[in-house]
């Protein structure tokens, strides 16, 4: 249960962040990714191919054609305008969020984000 004074400050922090150009651009870019069916299909095709690639690598059945196909798909995903926009917006918002985390961490005496983040799934 969050203490009320902490909650009030959290609300103010969220209000300021949500009003920033970086967070707004990131939210828009995230929504664009979710709306772009062509990009989502390409991205899931690339993920499927990457899994097959790893299993072929493990079996020793990887061919030059597999490598070329994987390279081409990877390039198509990374240079897709929706992805380019998303990555740029994410990088910009990360800069702002990391500065905020540093400001919080130096006051608390430990890294806020590392301690508050959900446990990593391995």
């Amino acid at each position, binding site marked *: 249960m969050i203490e009320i004074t902490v909650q*009030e400050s959290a609300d103010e922090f969220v209000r300021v962040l949500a009003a920033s*150009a970086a967070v707004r651009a990131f939210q828009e870019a995230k929504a664009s990714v979710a709306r772009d069916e062509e990009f989502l299909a390409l991205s899931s095709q690339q993920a499927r191919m990457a899994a097959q690639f790893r299993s072929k690598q493990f079996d020793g059945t990887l061919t030059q054609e597999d490598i070329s196909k994987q390279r081409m798909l990877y390039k198509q995903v990374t240079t897709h305008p929706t992805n380019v926009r998303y990555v740029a917006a994410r990088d910009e918002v990360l800069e702002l969020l990391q500065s*905020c985390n540093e400001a919080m961490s130096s006051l608390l005496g430990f*890294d806020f984000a590392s301690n508050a983040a959900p446990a990593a799934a391995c």
Partner: protein
Amino acid sequence: MQHAKQTQADSATGRAALQAAQALARKVAESGIYKEFEEASTAFRGDAAAQKLYRAYQSAQQEGRMMQSWGSRNKGIEERVQRLEKELISHPTYERSIAAQEDLLVALKELNDYLTAKLGFDFADMTKPAGGCC
């Protein structure tokens, strides 16, 4: 001109965000859970008997790990590790500091869940320093 105005607005928002982040951290630092964490940690660091026990436990653990890395097992060391661990976790100042640490972690995760629900992205997960898995 338009770009200069935008940059000014961005740096003003950036400053406001930093101030809001600092204000939030100050409120966390004033909370009962954080104060208990600080007091319990200070008490543990200042408790000579608990520190001695903690060092003995760490050293026995390290010895056990070294034996394991050489592929050998030593029942005596394993028993010593278990005995010291049992003594340590029932030591009042250690027990208090661990409980306070766990309570603080729960509170931080709750705060992050709150921020995440409002922002629509996981603040801590996105922001934490990159690191190896497990």
